[in-house]
């Protein structure tokens, strides 16, 4: 199994814990990740908001690089994944638009055919590697720990363009949590938005949307929350203290992990190789509990 690894702005500029943990665990599960040259931002939603054509050009040039490499592309960010999926759809249905984009790509010696396969991390883990292999690879089961699944909007919607998981009842992240030996259960707010995309216009509303969900997660008795989206992770982990302040709720201190960090602990990877020192939420007690077992 070989994938072209697309990082995107957020992961490569700041979400090092995600990238490090993905690079650490994938080879252990038989997956080879190949770095991409010549990539750029995917354009979502910064450019899709101001110029659809400029956005499609940006995304298509990344897809063109993956096509040149001759392997499926794995974008690490939910937003980049949606951007790739949407762009592939628009460029397939509108030949005029594709001609405009092709013309631009030619100036960079790139060409895009539309044949590239776009995969999501949840699909690679759940469907390609498979739960059985993950379960068998786990040497330190995360027993007795209850983790809430937060798949993130752009991994599951819109269902007419992508089917990473069911849009109203996603279960793959839950299955993956259980494969590590940890527990999880469904909760009503599981498919709710983290609010991060509102940060550019209203910082306070962003924190309130994230805070209301976090309050529910805490109230259900979860020991932690996990996701595979860098934007959602930034909200729940990096901005957790700010959320606590906005909500005036001191109970909102809950460990937040990238799924690949949790799985890495279950595979007995060194916590430093999983970038766990970069999580800003209070993960230490839970990590110690796991390591001591």
């Amino acid at each position, binding site marked *: 199994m070989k994938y072209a690894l697309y*990082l995107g*702005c*957020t992961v*490569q*500029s*700041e979400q*090092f814990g995600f*990238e*490090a943990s993905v690079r650490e665990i994938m080879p252990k599960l038989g997956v080879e990740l190949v*770095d*991409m*040259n*010549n*990539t*750029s*931002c995917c*354009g979502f*939603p*910064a*450019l*899709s*908001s*101001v*110029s*659809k*054509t*400029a956005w499609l*050009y*940006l995304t298509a*040039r990344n897809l063109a690089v993956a096509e040149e490499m001759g392997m499926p592309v794995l974008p690490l960010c939910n937003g980049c994944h949606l951007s790739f999926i949407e762009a592939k759809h628009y460029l397939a249905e509108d030949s005029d638009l594709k001609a405009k984009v092709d013309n*631009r790509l030619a*100036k*960079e*010696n790139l060409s895009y055919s539309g044949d590239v396969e776009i995969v999501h991390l949840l699909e690679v883990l759940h469907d390609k590697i498979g739960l059985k292999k993950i379960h068998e690879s786990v040497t330190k089961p995360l027993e007795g720990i209850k983790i809430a699944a937060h798949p993130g*909007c*752009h991994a599951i*919607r*819109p*269902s007419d363009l992508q089917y990473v998981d069911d*849009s*109203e009842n996603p279960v793959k992240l839950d299955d993956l949590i259980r494969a590590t030996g940890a527990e999880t259960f469904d909760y009503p707010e599981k*498919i*709710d*938005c983290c*609010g*991060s*995309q*509102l940060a*550019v*216009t*209203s910082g306070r*509303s962003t924190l*309130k*949307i994230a805070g209301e969900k976090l309050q529910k997660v805490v109230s259900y008795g979860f020991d932690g929350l996990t996701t595979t989206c860098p934007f959602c992770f930034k909200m729940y982990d990096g901005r957790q203290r700010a959320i606590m302040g906005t909500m005036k709720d001191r109970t909102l201190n809950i460990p937040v992990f990238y799924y690949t960090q949790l799985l890495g602990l279950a595979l007995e990877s060194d916590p430093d190789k999983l*970038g766990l*020192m*970069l*999580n*800003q939420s209070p993960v*230490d007690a839970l990590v110690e509990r796991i390591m001591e077992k």
Partner: protein
Amino acid sequence: MTSRDKSDFNTKELEEAIRKMHSEVCDQCGKCTSACPVTKEIEGFNPRQLVTKVALGQIDELLAEEAIWTCTTCLKCRERCPEEISPYDIILVLRNLAYRRGLNYPVGYDDFIKGINERGYISSPQQMRTRDGERVSRVNLGLPEPQVPMRMNAFKGNLEELLKAGND
């Protein structure tokens, strides 16, 4: 909020794109609004009302409102609409139109565009703080140097011309 100095771009294609979204078939069922995470937080943001205004041709009014810039792009409205109208997609076209007409848009977008134009990405790799307050870089973590567009001049030229020309 900020605005561009040009307002003379051709906007016909975008106006046509909005017409193709068939907002007139809306049943006013409100599933979009009840699913929307922004409606309950920001006064004046209501996808059902937005679809009505589009159907009534009140585009100028919508473009002048900050509301179109507050969508979180969660896509629940698109997912749940029984008439397959997508407030999410309508909002993106409205944003494109506002930008092209030289109307107000959030300041942050200029930084996004500037970053992409300068280095291919919105942001460049930062020194991140650990829980203990130590600063670490990609290099400290053994992560490879990020890749940038190889033909930077051609890349910049493409981006600038596409942004200037809008969607035409």
